[in-house]
């Protein structure tokens, strides 16, 4: 009966993980890849792969949150996506329907161009900086979580994010001066 109870608990825990982080994984994949279709594929593959390795991940997590592990799976799948297909990141805000869905009228009038500039700037960043910004600002992950997802120290992650923001700010400034 032990094995039965154990599997039941695992499935219940996985269901909770799925329910809590479906939007996180999808948002990460969407901003990483830049289109809904491939973001859906990566999200689906992430959860299917996560289910297969869930028991071991839970054991090795020692009670720590599993979101970084989940995002790391999505990160690996996204890296394969680029490697296999020799693709470059797309800029999500080129999709006009998404702009309407995400932002209200006032923001559209006042800040649409600026937000587009920001996303273009993010897409031009080196991969690790781009990823760190997506994790911080889209998923709201703290340095500790991002460090685990990227397999870095907390100190290195703090520096990575700081440099990413500085590089983006510089890029926006140069774009504005042209």
């Amino acid at each position, binding site marked *: 009966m032990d094995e039965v109870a154990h*599997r039941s608990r695992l499935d219940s825990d996985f269901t909770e993980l799925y329910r809590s982080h479906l939007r996180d994984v999808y948002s990460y994949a969407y901003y990483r890849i830049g289109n809904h279709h491939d973001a859906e594929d990566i999200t689906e593959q992430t959860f299917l792969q996560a289910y297969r390795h869930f028991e071991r991940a839970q054991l090795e997590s020692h009670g720590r949150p599993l979101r970084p592990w989940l995002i790391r799976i999505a990160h690996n799948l996204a890296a394969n996506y680029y490697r296999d297909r020799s693709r470059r990141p797309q800029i999500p*805000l080129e999709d006009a329907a998404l702009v309407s869905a995400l932002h209200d009228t006032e923001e559209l009038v006042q800040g649409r161009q600026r937000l587009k500039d920001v*996303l273009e700037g993010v897409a031009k960043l080196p991969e690790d900086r781009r990823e760190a910004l997506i994790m911080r600002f889209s998923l709201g992950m703290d340095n500790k979580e991002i460090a685990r997802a990227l397999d870095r120290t907390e100190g290195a992650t703090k520096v990575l994010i700081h440099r990413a923001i500085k590089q983006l*700010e510089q890029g926006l*400034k140069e774009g504005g001066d042209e």
Partner: protein
Amino acid sequence: MSELGDVESLLRSALRPVEPAEGLSDRLERGLSEITGAAAEELADTELSAMRNPRNWGRPVAAAVVGGAATGALVLVRARQRQKKRQARGLRAVEKGVQGVSAGLRRRLGG
């Protein structure tokens, strides 16, 4: 605030979380239900081989119950999602939610 405005606040606006389409949840839950169903079957087979020992005779029944419970948990996810949308969309969403749960239950009974 720099002349560019607060870059961090711009990033928060530009990178707002994106809700996945409902079709994705459906597809995912179907895939996960299939996997949990297969795992439950595997467990039941293992337990069946232990049937030679009379002390284990109650175990396959328990395995089947858990297999159903695992799939049921995923159906529950959908039911909860639909419940949230009911509050936002009104009566039309209520009907849709009931249909979704019924479909999930049909799958459970059929699988």
